[in-house]
């Protein structure tokens, strides 16, 4: 690979670093966009199956061309900015929504060594980048000059800031047991331990030792991405589509892409932090990126499963769950974990 690329590298000279990084970024973003497109189809098919319907089946075999058709439709629609809207901010909103959803992928390790930027403070970087996601919602809601959009924004901002806390606390627990902020080290650390040496790696992963935090992280992830049952931000039956109500065509499509990219991100991050990333669940099967993809795909299915199963939470119930259930639970667990790690019973030596 190195010798093959050397002539190309010489051609670009000092710019090669930039070119090669851009190639790597495209190698991550292009499959991600494909996954987002087919996630929309999978969502409609899976929920259709759960509600004993067929789902989209007209465009192409089994409806496989449906995402392409939807994309083309959105591409050709006119983008209308509302009167007296703040034009520049109105179009900045979708950009700020999707930018963090893509930037966070820079530190996600897909396999051992297969990562765009293997930074030491990867976990902190992720928390910082995901905390920027709320700006897309706030700016688009305010710039739309619409009451519905403003209501959606108020709900979204409060909800996303609240659940970021419990996400952060769950990550602190992961940090405590792995002793590293580097995502690759967090994954490799899960492959060591009593069960892993017996060939049962699946029991050594963080999900078992940090079981309450695993639940808190995934549920907070659902709330953070504003998905059902925490989707009061865009509750169709009350405030129509929340902050996205005034957007049409591609500007709406970008919000849609951001939401699904965030779902995939939360699934992959849950896999990396709690389900052993690319590690194989049993000793006799080889590790590899396919394990990461399979685990993330299962968690994405859980996203859809949850949406088809649970009714929407009331807004005060969402806030109560975040502040009065998750945060005390997290604080308690940080305390317990600290004692556990320092005690002779610690399993993370």
């Amino acid at each position, binding site marked *: 690979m190195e010798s093959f690329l050397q002539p190309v590298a010489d051609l670009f000279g000092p710019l090669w670093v930039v070119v090669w990084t851009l190639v790597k970024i495209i190698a991550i973003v292009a499959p991600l966009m494909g996954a987002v497109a087919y996630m929309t189809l999978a969502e409609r098919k899976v929920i259709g199956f759960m509600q004993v319907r067929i789902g989209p089946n007209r465009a192409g075999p089994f409806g496989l061309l449906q995402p392409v058709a939807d994309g083309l439709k959105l591409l050709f629609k006119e983008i209308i900015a509302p009167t007296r809207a*703040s034009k520049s*901010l109105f179009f900045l909103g979708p950009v700020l929504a999707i930018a963090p959803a893509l930037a966070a992928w820079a530190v996600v390790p897909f396999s051992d060594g297969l990562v765009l930027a293997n*930074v*030491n*403070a990867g976990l*902190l*970087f992720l*928390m*910082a*980048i995901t*905390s*920027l996601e*709320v*700006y897309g919602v*706030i*700016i688009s809601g*305010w710039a739309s000059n619409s009451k519905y959009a*403003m209501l959606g*924004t*108020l709900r979204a*901002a409060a909800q996303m*800031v609240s659940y*970021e806390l419990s996400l952060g606390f769950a990550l602190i627990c992961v940090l405590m047991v792995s002793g590293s*902020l*580097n995502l690759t080290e967090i994954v490799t650390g899960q492959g060591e331990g009593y069960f892993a040496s017996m060939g049962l790696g699946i029991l050594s992963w963080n999900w078992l030792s940090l079981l309450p935090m695993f639940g808190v992280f995934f549920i907070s992830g659902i709330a953070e991405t504003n998905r059902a049952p925490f989707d009061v931000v865009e509750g169709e039956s009350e405030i129509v589509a929340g902050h996205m109500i005034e957007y049409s065509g591609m500007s709406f499509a970008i919000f849609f892409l951001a939401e699904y990219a965030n779902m995939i991100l939360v699934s992959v991050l849950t896999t990396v932090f709690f389900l052993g990333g690319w590690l194989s669940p049993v000793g006799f099967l080889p590790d590899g990126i396919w394990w990461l993809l399979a685990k993330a795909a299962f968690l994405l299915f859980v996203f859809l499963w949850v949406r088809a199963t649970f009714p929407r939470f009331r807004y*005060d*119930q969402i806030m*109560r769950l975040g502040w009065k259930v998750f945060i005390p639970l997290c604080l308690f667990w940080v305390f317990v974990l600290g004692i556990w790690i320092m005690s002779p019973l610690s399993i993370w030596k």
Partner: protein
Amino acid sequence: MDLSFPTLCFYLFSAILVFAGLRVITSRNPVHAVLHLVLAFFTSGMIWMLMQAEFLAIAIVLIYIGAVMVLFLFVVMMLDMNVDRMREGFWRYLPVGLVVAAIMVAEMAVVLNGHYFSGVTLQPSPLTDGSLSNTRELAKIIFTDYAYPFELASLILLVAMIAAVMLTHRRRESARRIDPAQQIAVKARDRLVIHSVAPEKADVVTSAQQEESAK
């Protein structure tokens, strides 16, 4: 002059930072001003990143931009500010503002020219020699050498947080409250009564037959 890539980045970020800072005070729209302040914080974080202070850089993005500025933006969005009325007192307050600005410039000049500060910033500190993680080293120092000041600072922050909650928390007597435990404990029979009603099938049939025979 050395024009390496980090130097170029520094000048670019500094230009953005100065521009954003100026827009914060010149922007006519308060929301635009707050967003420029966000940009200023982000860019200063990037400058810290250039100085290899990765923890500080990420912390300003996480805490200031991710939490503090969101609430700031929230408040500014909710207030219907009349910018023209706020500008009325410009000439009256200008002398006071200039005095404050002069004091700030003088203080910064004293600090930057002082011999305690000179030369310390430009050379990389021994902690960031590349092999060690800046975050890890910072944590080691904070929790060993500076453990007491750190604990004291966190205690003060905690007290401030509790005080803020206590100041704003008031229990209104007229407010209606919901007890979630009670809500969850509700059974179907508490809300729904099923009555069995005697069937009226025979009557319906006969009335239909009567209608038919009437035709």
